[in-house]
């Protein structure tokens, strides 16, 4: 039980990597605050997490023995985040770990000059600023207690460029930058900030992920073809499973990584090596 007794906040927890991470934390003895927007966003061309999906994640975590608090909040709204975090602190006494896992992959699929201002702002607001708002709200209490771990789920798009994904790539690169800067800010108080950069993660049926499918759609290629391209691009010749990413998050959340901060851990089957 590597996270025994720890209170973990996960954003984007209704499905996909968020769900897989929550479950992995529950299995390691953590109690969970699961946060998701549970609503669709105008401008995002696919459905986001639903209340039912969030409840399902919670039920799975409870079966694993965790106490779970679910919170519906839009991380684009600082006030919503400022209400959600104290609720979690009330329920569990504190937040030991925050996993920033927000992410929209689209609107994308076009060259930089074709991106509209609203499209650009939306991407930055969710994928980058959403992480900043959560850090802003949990960082102060963690610093005061001189303990805590923040894990930002970035992407290989935070390390290299992807054609026709300028907004996503810019936001994820910025998340890596935010990780390093925040790590320095909090290092004196022993609060750690790290990033995980997943490669192409399979849209697992149990996790209800759909990121890969949406990227394929944005690029207007069939999903299986898109998967094939990525499998070939990842030296280990396989897509990443959600649990692979969750395992990296658990490691960075746990005290096993107590001397690791500001690091960027890739889980990409070797994609970013070359």
């Amino acid at each position, binding site marked *: 039980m590597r996270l025994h*007794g720890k209170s973990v906040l996960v954003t984007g927890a209704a499905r996909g990597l968020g769900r897989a991470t929550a479950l992995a934390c529950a299995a390691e003895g953590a109690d969970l605050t699961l946060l998701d927007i549970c609503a669709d966003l105008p401008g995002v061309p696919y459905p986001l997490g639903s209340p039912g999906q969030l409840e399902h994640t919670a039920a799975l975590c409870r079966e694993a023995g965790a106490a779970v608090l679910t919170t519906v909040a839009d991380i684009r709204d600082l006030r919503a985040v400022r209400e959600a975090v104290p609720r979690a602190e009330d329920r569990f*006494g504190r937040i030991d770990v925050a996993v920033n896992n927000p992410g929209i992959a689209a609107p994308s699929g076009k060259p930089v000059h074709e991106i509209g201002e609203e499209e650009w702002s939306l991407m930055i607001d969710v994928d980058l600023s959403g992480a900043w708002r959560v850090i802003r709200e949990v960082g102060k209490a963690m610093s005061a207690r001189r303990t805590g771990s923040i894990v930002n789920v970035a992407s290989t798009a935070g390390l290299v460029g992807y054609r026709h994904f300028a907004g996503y790539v810019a936001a994820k690169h910025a998340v890596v930058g935010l990780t390093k800067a925040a790590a320095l800010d909090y290092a004196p108080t022993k609060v750690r900030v790290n990033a995980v950069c997943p490669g192409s993660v399979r849209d697992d049926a149990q996790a209800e992920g759909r990121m890969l499918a949406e990227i394929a759609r944005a690029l207007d290629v069939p999903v299986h073809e898109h998967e094939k391209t990525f499998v070939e691009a990842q030296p280990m010749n396989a897509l990443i499973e959600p649990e692979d990413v969750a395992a990296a998050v658990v490691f960075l959340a746990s005290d096993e990584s107590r001397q690791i901060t500001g690091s960027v851990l890739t889980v990409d089957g070797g994609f970013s090596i070359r």
Partner: protein
Amino acid sequence: MSGPLLPAARCHAVRVRWDRSPNSAALSVLSGLSALSGLWTEDVPAPAADPPAERRRAAELARPADGLRSVLLRYADGPCDLILVAPRDQWDRTALARLAAGESPGPGTGHPAAGTAAFAPAPAWGLGDDGPTVPHLFSLDEGGDEAGWLAALAVTLRRYDPETSPVIGTDHGSFTVPEARTLGELKHAAADGPALVGLLFDEAEVPGAYVPCLAPPFPLTVAVFRDTDGWRLRCDHVSGHVSTEIAAQFTRHLVRVHQQLLDSPGTLVDDVDLMDETELERVAALGRPPRPLVTTPVSMPEAFTRIVAATPDRIAVTDGRAGLTYRELDERAAQLATGLRARGVGDGDRVGVCLERTAELVVTLLAVLKAGATYVPVDPAYPADRIAHTARDAGLSVMITRLPEFPEVAGCVPVTPDEVLHVDERLGVDEVPGVLDTASRPGDAPVLPTAVAPTAVAPTAVAPTAVGPTAVGPDTAAYVIYTSGSTGRPKGVEVPHRNVIALVDATRDAYGFGPDDVWTWFHSSAFDFSVWEIWGCLLTGGRLVVVPYFVSREPDRFRDLLVSEKITVLSQTPSAFAQLLDVDHSEVGVRLVVFGGEPLDARMLLPWFDRHPESVCRMVNMFGITETTVHVTEQTLTRGLALAATRSVGHPLPGWHLYVTDPAGRLLPPGVAGEVCVGGAGVALGYLGQEELTARRFVPDPFTGGTMYRSGDLGRLRPDGRLEHLGRIDSQVKIRGFRIELDEIRAVLLEDPDVRTAAVVIHRDDPADAATARINAYVVLSGGAPDTVRKRAAGVLPDYMLPTTVTALDALPLTPNGKLDPSRLPPPTAPRSSAHDAAPLTADTHADADTDLTERLREIWSEVLGVPVGLDDDFFELGGNSLFAVRIGAALRAHGLPSLRLRELYRHPTIRDTARELAASAT
């Protein structure tokens, strides 16, 4: 775990069970509460009795809160738990009681919060281990009152640590309880200082299951309270301070003391029993060995005869190039025994033996035993007055010695082994060969023995069969060995045959001793470690290799001997072994090293383990006492234990057992330090001619009915029955009112990676004036400087324990027994002037005075001895000793000069002679 208090330390929690979902009467209560501070509802997808549900309850009960937090757990099979957690200062039991009764809670009244001062330091008795923290829960018949618990805590704490005045924290201040005659007279008073133990007492009844604190606010927190199950006592502990076992034991003792206080307040505080009969039995059993002893009491000559019969032609003793087979050893000893009988030595008589460490000495010791007598070994290197004291005190009429000038002692006749052998033909003494040709001649400095000619024993000597049957049985004294002790004159310890036989039987199979083993005989026969070496070897059929004195003092030559003789069993004092570690020892092929005679710092073995893994060579530390026949306990050391710097000396040997007692002789529980008392197969007969002292130290064993020896050593049992040896009780000294543990200072110095070995002594400039006392430390460094060592120690030790001086030495001086010899430590290094303005003792008039070698020798001597040296100054007159000799040898090597054997320096103790010797050996 010794950091600042967790927020949880200030929280209470309570759990109230509902049989079904609270949608009836309870709901109103809950809605009231909900309005007050919110209610979290959780569905637990498991039945209330299942482990997952239990884990969820435990998690909720342990979750800290800033304000009141209430959680309703709804289990899959219907029941619900309401769990309330709140900081102590917001806790309101009256409201809770109403809640349980189905009423709405009113506003709380609150308790003041406990002080959150820093934790008290970890107590030695707590055996803190950073292991799991397990709360211990007791049901009590009676709750008593807070004053009673404070008194009971104080009594228990004083038993655990008599030196420290107890300070007990509560949630309304700290208290102490001054000593009083009876339990009922104990009264608490306000006190300051960090509290090791805290008491949270509350008599208001709390519904449900109650958790008085989520994390211990004190290193050891005792809470006495009432919940639905009645009076309860719960003990929470910080595991870095107090281990789970010790916390449970402490709580048990506290409850017992409190019960005695309630039942019979007139009980004298001194008469309070911490342990009941069952626990006493259990603790007594803890000090017994894991294996029983299988032994047949016989006399040592009888046991030896069996070995001779089994392997008559194997070599028993090797001395230089000479060897004696078991048969030869047996025959020669028998001849000598006959001579002793002829001289009038009878059963049970004591015979002094004052010979150099040679094969002849083994023959002589065995001969004394064969003659039915008791041997009294005396080291010829001892000062004359000590030799005389021994001869007088032991009432010796015969002293077998080759000392040319034996001190005059009334009634004691010094004889040589040759004279004993040829008692019937006194006139021919000088013409016939001696008991052994290996023996040194009177007047010679000790030298390596020349080759022995086993057939050279003259046919005129008495026949081996002539030794008459003796009536000596296993209960007669085999030897009397004099121990100095820390005070007074040396006293003779009488050890019977059966003890030595038991020692051999206790270890033979466990260590696989047999004819293939080759043992060293390193130690003086006057030191009982040699009893182990000689008889451990000869009574298991091994080969005993004599280590001559000079070899024993020169690590590289000793190493060479270990290699060339293929030694398998090496017995060493840690101090002597440290010197062996300084030379390259990778070729040494021993399979077993046994430590004895001194406390061992396990860390010093790490360089040995680097070259000799545990699977190849077993390292065993044996704690022992002369009065209990060499050894008492055995601890096999591993690299892991060495890294952990274990102080454990292990379990007793089969047949031996031990107790740890307080000054009143009561058994002490594990963890608590007290006097080590040893019973069983090794207990000696007593002190020769000192009935009063014997009666004081050799006392009835309250558990086995035998005799046990009160050792004067300080120790504590661990809960697993292993003994931690903590030094001599009388090594605890006070400086300016502070209790100083020299061993503790030494341990801190040894933590410095630059320090290889260390000694700490108290020095008084004016012996009569305690105010002039200061602590001097001596260290052997592998790097760094004494100043740095002291600076580092200053970061750990309190001021009053910090050594005033730290002096670096090349080696620590050892006694002939291989133990640290404090009397030969040089004066501590003081800021010294570089100019030597004193004149040399002798004027240099010789023409060769300025030769290069001589000049460099003079520089080295002056540097080492710290005085200007003339060419004909005698090394010893300048204060030279073996330690300085070793340092001169090291300096010569460092300067690339030919090496100088210790023996040569002793023979040629001036620079002129040494230079000549070196020049001659160089050509």
